[in-house]
């Protein structure tokens, strides 16, 4: 198990830093599978957490169910990383204005961005609507 003893901000991408990210990404998506939304919030980047109320954030989660995931590749460039992974998700049936939605279990390849902020890796929160995040770098 990777361990973190001091800040790795100066680390350009050592095996230790990559292992720590693998551990964090696994923890993050395991929390999604287990629907541990408080943990998910706490692993989002600190810039997002500084602006967003935890309860407001958690209330937006739960519609999509995550069943499995697999980390395929990790690319670290200093304090920014891209994590390629596949995950299996579904959307149980729900109604929105008389229209019923459902998505069966589906496998999808995704790429997520993680940022190392002083003491650990955090999942970078990004708004899909405006394609921007809370961190400005």
């Amino acid at each position, binding site marked *: 198990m990777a361990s973190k003893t001091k800040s790795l901000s100066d680390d350009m991408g050592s095996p230790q830093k990559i292992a720590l990210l693998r551990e964090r990404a696994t923890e993050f998506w395991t929390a999604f599978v287990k629907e541990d939304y408080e943990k998910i919030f706490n692993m989002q980047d600190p810039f997002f957490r500084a602006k967003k109320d935890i309860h407001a954030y958690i209330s937006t989660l739960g519609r999509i169910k995550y069943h499995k995931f697999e980390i395929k590749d990790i690319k670290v460039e200093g304090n920014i990383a891209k994590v390629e992974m596949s995950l299996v998700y579904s959307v149980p049936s729900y109604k929105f204005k008389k229209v019923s939605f459902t998505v069966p279990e589906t496998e999808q390849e995704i790429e997520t961005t993680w*940022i190392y902020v002083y003491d650990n890796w955090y999942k970078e929160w990004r708004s899909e609507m405006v394609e921007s995040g809370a961190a400005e770098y």
Partner: protein
Amino acid sequence: MDMKRVLIFLLILFAPMRAAADEQLPFPDTFNRFEGIFLQQDDKGNIWTSYTDMDGYFHMKNVSLKKDFVINDKSGRASTGFTVNRNGDALYIAWIDKTGGRKKLYFRAVAGSGDTISDPVLLDDNQTEALPRIRIGSNSGGNVYVLWYGERAVGKAKYHNYVAVSNDNGMTFSSPQNLTMGYGYAIYPTLLVDEENAYIFSYVLKDKKFYMIFRKTTDNGKTWTDPVVIKETPGTVTTYIKPLKTGNRLYVFWYCTTKQGPVTQKAFSDDGGKTWNSSDYDDLKGISLSYMTAASDAQGHMYFAYSGGTMGQKSNTYIIISKDQGNTWSKPISLRHYPFTTTTTVYPQIIASDDGTVAAVWVDYRNIRSNIYLQYSLDGGETWQPGDIPLEEPGRYNTSYFGYASENFIKTGDTYSILAYRLPADDLSMGEAKLLVMKFSIKTAR
């Protein structure tokens, strides 16, 4: 190993020194980080910092003697556009009060380590409709020049550059004089003052064409030469106009956007501004600048530093060097020694010393949180340190400074000081921040 891995290995091998700067946090209160900040040392050795607090009051703090002066104690939030200039043991301050629909331009002087502070001198009572982009220049002859732009229309032309001049260290001033009469749209007042003369550079509009023009005074502001056109500009000039004097050569840099893309231009004069030799920085064609500055030393070295990049790129920080008073220039050299281009750097500040030492600091986002980094050269920019030096613990705080309206990097003896701020949290939208002075010397940074 491929080249990228070799570079990473070398950067780890030459891992930078840590926490090279001593930090002073003399300001327990928060300040408004969207206003300019100023750092000066007077010739009595006092360190002065100036900033606007959250209620709009502008403070001049003698950090050395722990004295605090509120400059606009009667106007608070009605004030804007503060700027500060130092000359000897005096600090000159100008600002605008907007009250009752009138724009009033004021001036005050603090002298003798703060023993004396003048009453506000009203330079303009809405006559020019002054706007906040005020410049002050001064010399040891007691001449103080305050240059600004006002929005009052003269004929059909709006926006002019005005100057008010004092020949008694800021006790009394001349009436405002319009230095861009016959032109319009002069929105970027730019001033350079030396021991003999004062020079202004104005980006102006006339007959649907834009020009960079020049005027100077050789009689302490009593008269000004007729405008000399330095160059017709190919597009819209932005706020970045930087003048410099190296030896007897006058130099000016500016940045403009054109239909064909951004262009950075420069011009120099060896005959006191009568004729100008202008050219483009060919290497900067198509490069969008987010900030630029310049410095020179007594050996004729000139340094032009900027942050910017092409569309879609993260802004990086570069320096371009001339060893012949700006006749020829090097290719852009990245000040940042970092293998990845996924994070931004902004606001380079440089100080060039006559012994060939060049110190450059900038705001760097490589640690996601912004930190101040240092690079230096001991041989006039020929060689630089293999690794950049963080002036604080990387990634721990959000530390930055607002480059546009500030003068916050000084050298006194062997000590460099930079006035910066720290945000109290990671909510970057908050205006409140705490000031800090970071001090370092090249000797201790090695």
